[in-house]
């Protein structure tokens, strides 16, 4: 039960934090059409996050009813029931289970695009498997979201190619983005303890099943974009976001996102 809740929160947190990051572009995109596109992806991701949070809240409330202690409360110290909003707005950094990749700063358009591409490729294969999960609710959310993610993947792939094979400047910018972000891709495929547990129960996706597909997708698009993988050597050790060990960025995201709920607690908005 706890593993299912944690896993659901992990899926939700990934979608919310990347959606939040993308929404920072709204009104500031490089061209109107792309401003709309990136905002659209933000909306899709926040929509997915809401589905997952609502489910997690239901699970938490049910398990509290049965007398078990809720694992990642979100309701703790708040009183009352967990909701999508207590989970998003009242948990602190250590309780968030998103990957480090999604909380990285937007940087320039190249970094934003590449972050989206890495993540959408991951989400695409993940949801393809998740739609066959033993857990019917997760399966249904994955199935419903897959259409969106397919578009996100196509859109971000096209942009990676465009930037890689565009001008000298765009090529060097996306190369820099690869250097900056590559180090965060390992974590996507390193299962956290709750993932292992949930995988054993047939709920979560076995990450080893999707890693090769992901890598092949990246390789194909990188080829088309005339990009190469950076070397692994000398890359810094990174912590693990899924276990609540985040980069410093997440604290600022939450400070901003949670401001109203923290400053005016227990109000209805």
């Amino acid at each position, binding site marked *: 039960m706890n593993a299912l809740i944690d896993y659901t929160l992990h899926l939700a947190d990934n979608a*919310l934090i990347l959606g939040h990051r993308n929404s920072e572009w709204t009104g500031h995109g490089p061209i109107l059409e792309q401003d709309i596109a990136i905002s659209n992806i933000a909306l899709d991701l926040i929509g997915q996050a809401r589905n997952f949070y609502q489910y997690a809240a239901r699970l938490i409330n049910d398990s509290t009813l049965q007398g078990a202690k809720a694992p990642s409360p979100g309701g703790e110290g708040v009183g009352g029931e967990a909701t999508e909003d207590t989970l998003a707005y009242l948990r602190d950094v250590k309780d968030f289970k998103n990957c480090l990749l999604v909380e990285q700063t937007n940087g320039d358009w190249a970094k934003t695009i590449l972050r989206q591409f890495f993540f959408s490729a991951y989400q695409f294969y993940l949801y393809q498997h998740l739609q066959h999960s033993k857990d019917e609710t997760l399966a249904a959310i994955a199935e419903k979201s897959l259409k969106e993610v397919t578009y996100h993947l196509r859109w971000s792939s096209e942009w990676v190619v465009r930037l890689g094979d565009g001008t000298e400047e765009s090529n060097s910018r996306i190369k820099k983005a690869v250097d900056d972000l590559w180090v965060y891709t390992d974590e996507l495929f390193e299962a956290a303890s709750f993932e292992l547990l949930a995988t054993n129960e047939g709920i979560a996706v076995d990450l080893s099943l999707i890693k090769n597909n992901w890598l092949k997708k990246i390789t194909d698009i990188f080829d088309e974009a005339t990009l190469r993988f950076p070397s692994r050597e000398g890359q810094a050790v990174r912590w693990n976001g899924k276990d609540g060990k985040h980069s410093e960025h997440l604290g600022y995201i939450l400070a901003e996102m949670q401001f109203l709920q923290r400053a005016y607690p227990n109000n209805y908005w």
Partner: protein
Amino acid sequence: MQIINEEKIFADKIDEEIKIEPKDWMPDQYRKTLIRQISQHAHSEIVGMLPEANWITRAPTLRRKATLIAKVQDEAGHGLYLYSAAETLNISRDEMLKQLHSGKAKYSSIFNYPTLTWADMGAIGWLVDGAAIMNQVPLCRCSYGPYARAMIRICKEESFHQRQGFEILLTLSKGSKAQKQMAQDAINRWWWPSIMMFGPNDDASPHSKQSMEWKIKRFSNDELRQKFIDVCAEQVKILGLVLPDEKLKWNEETKHYDFGEINWEEFRNVVNGNGPCNKERLEARVKAHEDGAWVRDAAAAYSEKRKSREQKAVA
């Protein structure tokens, strides 16, 4: 002789309420007026994204966050329709953007006010989108076809925005004391700038008369303003809040609300670039455009490369 004929055809069409289309002959001044008005309108949509985008990352619930993103995105869409409508008059989007960035083209002054609290999202939806609708519904019958058609699509979405904004305020007005105060404070700050959105009084409005004759405009600034005030004075009662105008009072004789003196000096000041956020808004637009230059260049270069590869493949 030719010209006289064309002038007559144009005038007849206007008389008979037949839309003028891009390929039709039109007086130079008609074209210029439309370019000025439509591009100004498009710029307002785009600059207008900024004060609301300012609260996306701080929206208080996930539902509010999603709705706000969608709303700001709608405004981007409005900008797109309007730039396209203006382009039918032989001016490019690039040229229009240049005029915006250089300060030559104007946009609605309302967006030069800051958004300070969450309640501003409600006040903007209710009052600013509300005033925009009042202005824009008659434009759905504008004599220029592409503009009229763009306005029909836009107005549908704007009325949705207005309801959302009102609902934000309604929720706050039923909330805690602090929330209620937040709502009242937002209305206090947005009310006067909103009623200035209808432009100067009729006797001080330089372009109005000709625009009415060409059926670009259907009602005068003062007529629309009065209509808006009459509506809002009633709606604010539902919120249990007040409009910040001591002279606001129902007049049995005119069947309209009387209202206080508008501070036209503030209006002129903001129009002329001295509002609280003129500088920030324009800088944000220029920055987005300049930071995006390499992205647009890359997209153009790539599509060129592709085209020439395809041509080679064919040959």
